[in-house]
Structures are given as structure tokens and as C-alpha cells.
């Protein structure tokens, strides 16, 4: 469902040119649970941003659901983001002065659903993450793990087929991380494709496939890496 060919991303400032991604080739099939690993600054977030249409590649071809999305305008890209993609961030990013229901409601507002539809979806999603009884709480009244569950509910509320998570457990203790991971696994089991960036080898191990990004290039390992072995990427080789 996701296909990247020769994707490069260059950030230019007056002083420096940063090659965040270099001719990255990559594909993700429907229903996969992909863990993306790699050292800091290797380009993982940049890859997620391009995958989620938050940024455009400097060059290369990106197809989502068979559609070349690199040439679309802001409106069309926003529509696709709204309908097909859900985002989860490391630092939850709930809007502090909206209650849980209104936070989960955010993507649905841009979807143009009726109030009834939205209310039902919000309720279902908060039930799914176990916070159905706290619709009117403010984010500040929740623990970190609970906030991240709300963020997951928000990402899933519009029934996207594609979930992008950037270190979703990075700010959580291992117990909370486990709950969130379980939630992601069950969502994946229901058919949602997940791409998750993580630094945690144990979590990466549980994904169906690992992609290692190094220096802006992707290394695919079809079988999950052993949690005890530090992956040694084949430098300079990229294959999809």
C-alpha cells in the first residue's frame, strides 16, 4: 500500500545542506506492522513525515494506495491525511484545553461527519482504549500512558488504514509502554497497517518486519532481529 522509490530529502539552510534521506527505497504491504529503527538523526522522523504527507520529498516517487501523491496540492494532501493516515507522537500532543472527547474529535471535524457519527466514533474509540468513562476529563488529569491512549484513540477515530507512530512509547515507563504496545498489536490484528519508529529493540522485535534506517537509507530485515543482538546494517546497501 505504501511504495517509495529513490526518495531523497535535503534540508537547505543558508549555511548547510542536510541529506536527511538518500535515495530511500521501501515498501509496506497492507496489514503489516513495521518497526523502524536507527540511530538518532538517521532520518526516521523525516521518513514518517513524508509517508504521512506532512512533508514532500526533494526527489523520488511516493505512491500511497497506488496513487502518486508527490504532486498533490495542500488540500488534496490534507484530505488523504485525514482519511487514510493516523499519527501518534512521542509526546502525546493533546490539546490542553479541550477535554478527551473533543481531542479525539479533532480529525473528525475535518472529515465532515455529522454530530451523531462523530459522537459515536469518539465514544467507541475512548471505550477501545479503556477511557470511555472519562470523556470530559482534561488531558492534564490523566497519566502519561492514559494520554497516549487518548492520542491513539484520536489517531484511530477516523478509521485510517495506516497508522504512523513516532516513538509512541518513548515517554512512557515499561509498564505503560506494554499497555500501549498491546493496544497497537490488537489494532494491527484488526487490519490497520502500522509503521512505528522505536528505539526499543524488544518492541521492534515484536513487529512483523523491521526496517533499519542509517544515514538516510533503509535496510530491510524480513525477520525480526533478535533483541539481544545489535543490528549491524549493511552500509550503503538499500533494497526494498
Amino acid at each position, binding site marked *: 500500500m505504501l511504495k517509495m522509490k529513490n526518495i531523497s530529502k535535503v534540508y537547505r539552510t543558508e549555511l548547510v545542506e542536510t541529506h536527511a534521506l538518500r535515495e530511500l527505497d521501501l515498501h509496506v504491504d497492507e496489514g503489516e506492522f513495521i518497526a523502524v529503527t536507527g540511530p538518532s538523526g538517521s532520518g526516521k*522522523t523525516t521518513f514518517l513525515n513524508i509517508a504521512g504527507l506532512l512533508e514532500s520529498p526533494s526527489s523520488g516517487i511516493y505512491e500511497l494506495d497506488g496513487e502518486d501523491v508527490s504532486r498533490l496540492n495542500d*488540500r488534496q494532501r*490534507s*484530505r488523504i491525511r485525514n482519511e487514510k493516515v493516523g499519527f501518534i507522537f512521542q509526546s502525546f500532543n493533546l*490539546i490542553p484545553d479541550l477535554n478527551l472527547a473533543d481531542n479525539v474529535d479533532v480529525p473528525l471535524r*475535518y472529515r465532515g461527519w455529522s454530530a451523531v457519527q462523530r459522537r459515536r466514533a469518539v465514544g467507541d474509540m475512548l471505550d477501545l482504549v479503556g477511557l470511555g468513562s472519562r470523556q470530559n476529563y482534561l488531558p492534564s488529569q490523566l497519566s502519561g500512558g492514559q494520554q497516549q491512549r487518548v492520542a491513539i484513540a484520536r489517531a484511530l477515530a477516523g478509521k485510517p488504514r495506516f497508522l504512523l507512530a*513516532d516513538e509512541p512509547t518513548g515517554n512512557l515507563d515499561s509498564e505503560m509502554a506494554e499497555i500501549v504496545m498491546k493496544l497497537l498489536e490488537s489494532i494491527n490484528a484488526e487490519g490497520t497497517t502500522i509503521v512505528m519508529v522505536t528505539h526499543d529493540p524488544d518492541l521492534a522485535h515484536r513487529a512483523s518486519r523491521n526496517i533499519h534506517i542509517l544515514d538516510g537509507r533503509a535496510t530491510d530485515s524480513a525477520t525480526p532481529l533478535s533483541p539481544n543482538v545489535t543490528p549491524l546494517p549493511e552500509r550503503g546497501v538499500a533494497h526494498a
Partner: protein
Amino acid sequence: MLSYYLRLAFASIRRTPVLSALMVLALGLGIGAFMTTFTVYYLMSGDPIPHKSHMLYAVQLDNWDPNDPPTESAKDVQPQITYQDGQNLVNADTPAIRQAQMYASNVIVVPESDEPPFDESVRATYHNFFRMFDVPFLYGQPWERREDEDHAAVAVIGRELNDRLFDGANSVGKNIRVDDQFLQIVGVIDDWQPTPRFYHVDAGGQFDDTEQIFLPLSWAIDQPLLPSGNTNCWKPPDEDLSLLEAFLQSECVWNQFWAEIETPEQAAAYKDFLDNYVRDQKALGRFERPLNTFISNVPEWLEVNEVVTDDNRVLVRLSFLFLLVCVLNTVGLLLAKFLGKSGEVALRRAMGASQGAVFSQNLVEVGLIGVLGGLSGTGLAWLGLRAVESLYRGYQHLVHLDPVMLTTAIGLATLSAILAGLYPVWRVSRLAPAGLLKTQ
């Protein structure tokens, strides 16, 4: 979507109450100052009698000191005329449809009830006054020409006085006691307040209330009721005559004089008539200056008397500049506020909000700030007009905060806020949506 955006706007304003209050205040101050000066200017420069202002002419005759500098325009001539000239003109056969001589005075009204006596303003004039100025009548009608000739003790009173003395009932035929005389009421006029009060703009009275008692000038002179407006003299009255007689025959000016004229030809003929009158008077040894007569219709008259001063215009301009400064200030505050929202904007973008949606959402917020600014500006304008009213005698009619002004203020504030907000809103809608993930 609008109601959603409005809810978000209220939430956002509540999140940064101080910053929001500053913006509302900045806009409010600018709008308030501008609306205050503009209202004063607008009412000052309005046409007090639009349907007729080009048919009503104030008369000026140059009877002044021959040693004064030469006359160049109507502004150099006294705005009033002498009693004797007024009498001569009123009694002459002229090309004008109507003429009216008049002056302002004061009396003590003694109510029949237990209410204590009170001071009331009076206009001594001719029966023509009411038809000439289209004065609306509630009850009765003006007195007749015969009553002017008979020095009759009759009066037309204002609605306010009628409410006070007769509880608003039809008082035609009843008497009113002024000083120690009784006047029979022949008419009650409805609310009538030309602004500016063009028929007597002298001595800062251009925004005074219209008088509550109108009575025949012939009767007023008999009492005598002395003028309460400006009286200007350039040479002492004749000492051989009694004081009153000397005053009436003096070269002192204290009468306003108006003529109603229909066509430009009539106006020219009337002007000729005045010139001939002055020539006749010159033959009698009066009017020692070169021949200068002026007739000015209402707009011209307000101009001659500088009812709208340059100060007012300068003030309007200054307050507009002040409004601009306030708007620019608001641009800065909005930028600060909106840049603080970059996290939320990036989040909404990631959730599928287009640039247009972000733009609209923030524009609604800016509009809301504008409406609040407009409301506070209206409040400040109201206070400002109250201040104008208390600082300057006779500005009572300027302080109406009517619906037109209210909507204008709010509209202006919203427009200002939106203008101020366009750039910040545009900036915020262009924020990179990826920012959120990158800043982790």
C-alpha cells in the same frame, strides 16, 4: 464548522486572557477615540434641515465701524443685525417668500402646581418662523400675522415644557405664566432639534437645545425681554433717548434674520433688495462702510460661522492615526499569540486540516477579538462623548449612541481586527505541518 471555530476561538481567548484583553483593549481604545471624534464631527457637519437647507438664507448687513479693516467675505461681517434693520426688513415688501427676525431670551416660568418657578429659554420671533423651518406641531398651530401686529400675549411651547407643565396633555388655549405675565398657548411643537441649531449658531450656541417657549417678538420688546445671546456694539447708544429706546435704535447687533427663498433668481432679486435697502440707509447717514450685504443658505451659513472647526477635522485625522497605531499594535500581539499556537496548528494539520481550514479557524478568532474590541470601543466612545458633553456646554445632542453608531463601531473594529489579523493568520496557516514531529 463556524460554530466549531467559534468554540475554539473562545477557548483560545480564555487560554491567554491577558494577551487577549490587551488586544481587545488596544482595538477598543482606537475605535473608541475614533468613534468619539468622528461622531462629534459627523453631527457637527450634518445638514440640520436637509429638504430645505438650500432655500433658507441668513442675512448679513455690514453696519460696522468704518475704521475696521475692509470686508473680504461673509466671515468678516457680523452674523447678526440690528433691531431696527430687522424691523425695516420684516415690514418691507420683498422678493422672499417669508422672513423672520428673532432673538433669544430667558424667562422665569411659574407653574400653577406647587413646583417652584424655573428658568426657561425663549425665542422671540414672528409667526413665519414655524412654517419657514418646518417645525412639527403636536397640538395647535403657530400664531397669526395679526397677533404679531397686535403684540399679542401668545406662545408656542415645546413638548418638553408641555410634558412638565401639563403632563403632555393638549394645552392649547391654556395659559402659561412667564415672569409676571400670562401667555395663551396656541400650539405645542413636537420634538424638534436641528443639529447644528443653524438658526442661531452664534456664541457657541450651535448645539444648544431648541427653545421651549416661542412668542411674538413685538410682545417681547414691550416687556422688555432682553437678549440672552451675544450683543455687539461698535458705538455707544444715543444718550438723549431712554435706555431701551436707545438700545433699539442703536447700531448694536443682536437679532438673527432669516429669509426663505425658492429660486436662484429670487435669491438674486432678494440680494438686490438688500443692497437697495442699505443704499437708502446710507442716504440717512448709516452704513458708513462700503456696500456689503451677504445672504448664505444653511450649509454656507454653517461654513461662514465655522461650526465645524479645523480642530475637529484635525482631531478626526489624529484619532484615525491613533486607530492605525492600535491596529498595528494588535498585529504584533496577534503574531505573538499565533506563533504560540504553532504546536496546535501542526497537530491539526497532521490530523487533516488544510491550510484553508487553519486560516478560517484563526480568522474567526481574530473576528471574535474584533467584535469584543468593537463592543469595548463603543463603551469607550460612549464615555468619550459623555466627557465631550461635560467639557463643552451645549453638546448634549452629540452623545446619542444610536444603533447606527453601534453597528458602525463593531463593524469597524471587526474590520480592523481582520485587517490586523490577516498577516498573522496567513503566517500561522503556512506553518510547516511537520514541525510537531521534528521538535520532539
